[in-house]
């Protein structure tokens, strides 16, 4: 079991450019979650999918951020017109929903917007 895979591990963009982050959940897990982590705000929930359907996007900034899950093996988080305040570590987690619905996290993508 390779765990949750996230690519790229590091991404540097210029202000106003687009960034696409990729996540491959653990095989067989039906839920995928996106979070972001900053020193100031800590860990914040962004959005999640269950069986590829968007369920809760209450943490997503209303503009510029979007997430998709086109198939059960990957999800993407896209940030348009990136701003310096978008700099953070973006974390993806997956869960099988069995037992206590424990979430398992990937290594994260560190996004730096210059």
């Amino acid at each position, binding site marked *: 079991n390779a765990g949750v895979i996230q690519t790229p591990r590091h991404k540097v963009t210029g202000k106003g450019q687009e960034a696409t982050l990729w996540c491959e959940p653990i095989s067989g897990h039906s839920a995928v979650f996106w*979070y972001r982590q900053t020193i100031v705000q*800590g860990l914040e929930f962004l959005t*999640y999918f269950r069986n590829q359907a968007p369920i809760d996007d209450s943490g997503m900034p209303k503009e510029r951020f979007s997430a998709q899950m086109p198939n059960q093996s990957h999800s993407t988080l896209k940030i348009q017109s990136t701003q310096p305040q978008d700099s953070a570590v973006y974390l993806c987690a997956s869960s099988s929903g069995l037992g206590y619905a424990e979430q398992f996290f990937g290594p994260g993508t560190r996004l730096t917007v210059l």
Partner: protein
Amino acid sequence: GQQVQQSPASLVLQEGENAELQCNFSSTATRLQWFYQRPGGSLVSLLSNPSGTKHTGRLTSTTVTKERRGSLHISSSQITDSGTYLCAMGNPSSFSKLVFGQGTSLSVVP
């Protein structure tokens, strides 16, 4: 909104001492999941339980849902236990977002 408060914010132990990390949360419909993170490292899931006590190795997680509190006990601390411990709350039995505390930074010294 839902909130999670962790204490202490930081803790220094001598190797071999025990640690007790606290987590208070705002909802009674909660399970707690404890994570460990090294600086610049991934979140590693330690324990997850809705209520009662759960053990793994030198770690014991206790959740008292009615009192909206939980704790993580680390026995016989080792230098390699140093890092940040995060408490997160979520729905007890189904998929839901996790709400995280700010973490407890643990340093274990010789």
